[in-house]
């Protein structure tokens, strides 16, 4: 089996586990942010923090052992746009709020029969490629050229600074993740249907999958003659890739991202069938459908500009300690906050 085939199988396996885990635990950054901002109980944000801590430790370990050359990855490219990254992040975060979850969450939901997610995913994938290589492509390139910076420092410097940054960041994240909050005694029981333990285990698994992705593309996929792009979990371009591959398979080769996305859908489907949680769901009103369409499209455009999504930048990008990823991730959270004010904070007030 060639190294390319091995990487594709690894991607499928990673996707299957991600889908199953996402379906079983409901892993979702957006849910975690809403839980926090609406002061509901629940451990989704802790779960995400744990995933980030595990991803950070594992990824830096791979790098320091020389197994994966992270400098070849998207997040450590010599130049990036100081404008498009934050603007994209804001757009993505806002779209995520409108669509009630990011692309990864939509894939998991699709596996359990949620047709709203199908609409979100189609809009996300098409909008992403419209921005990358489509009608918005020339505008994106023009703006990118005008606002590119080539900073001397792309990430925390190697050696002691990186070691310290990794340990301190992971430590802070772990402290936050493992702390029991007062939301533990949640009288209404509405806040979370999964136990704290399930959330934490889910976070660890997702974090390990990020590390597995780096290992697959960066070590297994490393070949002198035909190296594969060094990537890990991300759910913007790969969703567009799946749509393209479905249409162009006779003239397009499979990629790691496509294998992962396919795996997520199948993994979630299998688990939801096993747990009898499969249920066809659609939109309740046309207004809701429009909101999800716009949300998905915002995520596609924003994710393409920000070079990633809540998982792509929030976990994978941040695991490289890249400064541009920190910029994107922060913008994503800000965008989500703006959407929360618009769409989700009303509920919290109503519930109270």
């Amino acid at each position: 089996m060639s190294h390319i085939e091995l990487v594709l199988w690894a991607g499928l396996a990673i996707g299957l586990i991600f889908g199953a885990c996402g379906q079983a635990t409901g892993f979702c950054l957006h849910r975690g942010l809403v839980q926090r901002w609406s002061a509901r109980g629940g451990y989704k944000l802790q779960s995400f923090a744990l995933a980030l801590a595990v991803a950070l430790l594992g990824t830096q370990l791979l790098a320091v052992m020389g197994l994966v050359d992270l400098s070849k990855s998207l997040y450590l490219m010599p130049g990036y746009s100081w404008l498009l990254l934050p603007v994209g992040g804001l757009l993505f975060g806002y779209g995520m709020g409108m669509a009630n979850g990011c692309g990864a969450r939509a894939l998991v939901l699709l596996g359990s029969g949620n047709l709203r997610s199908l609409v979100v995913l189609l809009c996300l994938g098409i909008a992403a490629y419209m921005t990358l290589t489509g009608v918005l492509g020339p505008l994106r390139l023009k703006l990118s050229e005008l606002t590119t910076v080539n900073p001397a420092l792309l990430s925390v410097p190697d050696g002691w600074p990186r070691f310290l940054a990794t340990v301190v960041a992971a430590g802070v994240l772990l402290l936050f993740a493992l702390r029991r909050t007062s939301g533990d005694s949640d009288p209404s029981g509405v806040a979370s249907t999964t136990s704290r333990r399930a959330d934490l285990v889910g976070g660890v698994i997702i974090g390990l999958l990020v590390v597995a992705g780096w290992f697959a593309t960066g070590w297994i996929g490393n070949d002198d003659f035909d190296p594969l792009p060094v990537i890990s979990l991300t759910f913007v371009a790969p969703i567009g890739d799946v749509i393209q591959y479905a249409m162009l398979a006779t003239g397009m080769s499979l990629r790691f991202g496509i294998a992962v996305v396919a795996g997520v859908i199948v993994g979630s489907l299998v688990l939801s069938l096993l747990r009898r949680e499969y249920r066809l769901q659609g939109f309740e009103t046309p207004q809701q459908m429009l909101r999800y369409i716009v949300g998905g499209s915002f995520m596609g455009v924003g994710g393409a500009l920000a070079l990633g999504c809540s998982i792509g930048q929030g976990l994978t990008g941040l695991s490289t300690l890249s400064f541009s990823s920190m910029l994107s991730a922060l913008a994503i959270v800000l965008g989500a906050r703006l959407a929360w004010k618009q769409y989700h904070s009303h509920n919290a007030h109503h519930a109270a």
Partner: protein
Amino acid sequence: MNRLAYQSNFHSIRTRRQFLAFTGIGMAALLAPSFAGATSVWRQLAAARNSVGDAAVLEEGLQLTLPLVAEDGSSVPLSIKSNTPSRITRLELFAPANPTPEVAVFEFGPEIQSVNLTTRIRLSESQTVIAVAHTEDGKAVVAERPVRVTVSGCVAPAKSDPSAEMKARVRTPKSWAAGTSAEVLTMISHPMVTGLAEDASGSTPPTRIIEKFEATLNGQPVLQARYFRSLAANPYLKFEVAPRHEGELQFRWIEDTGRSVEHTEPVVLG
């Protein structure tokens, strides 16, 4: 029969005729390209016509594989496989819309019974890539493949390090079976400067490319290639060869400045 039924019958006849007409036109449109002949772009390129010359043209026997959509025009993978009754002696690749339409010219020795090679090329824009192969019995086999080149998804200029240039890498099988084809992978690190691109400082460095690649077995030429600037940076060539004798495979890359690099691999028949 009441009026509504009469009208609906009338409608269905009208629409059925229209439907048949549309499908007829539709099917004709789908079939038309194949009627017009699968390869027709090469006739519009003078270099391709010159290569074919007076030879009888075959449009089957050469399988040219390229991605339908290439997001990175600076490195587009190209594969070519031959399935012709007569051995191929010479293969030429063209990218008609490139500033230099010639991509590469390959000449094959008797150890290469059928062509099965892979490389990476540069495409400046969407176009149809052309391959012209000459067989031992004097025929020309032509293949074409359209490629759509989009803007690059990620703008990441490759930093070229002069000290890392001209480093050759070769992978050959550990043991060979006499007369059986096996894969040889070769690559040399070289920026293949086109002479058309501006570098970071705003100047345009002059053309500087690997011009020739030669593979010989015990001094006899196995594969000789002439590269042009339409070949991608870090020229990569994977090809199949079936050696008949043991000995040494010697590889040589020659830059247009005269600089050259050599690499040798033993051939052990197992």
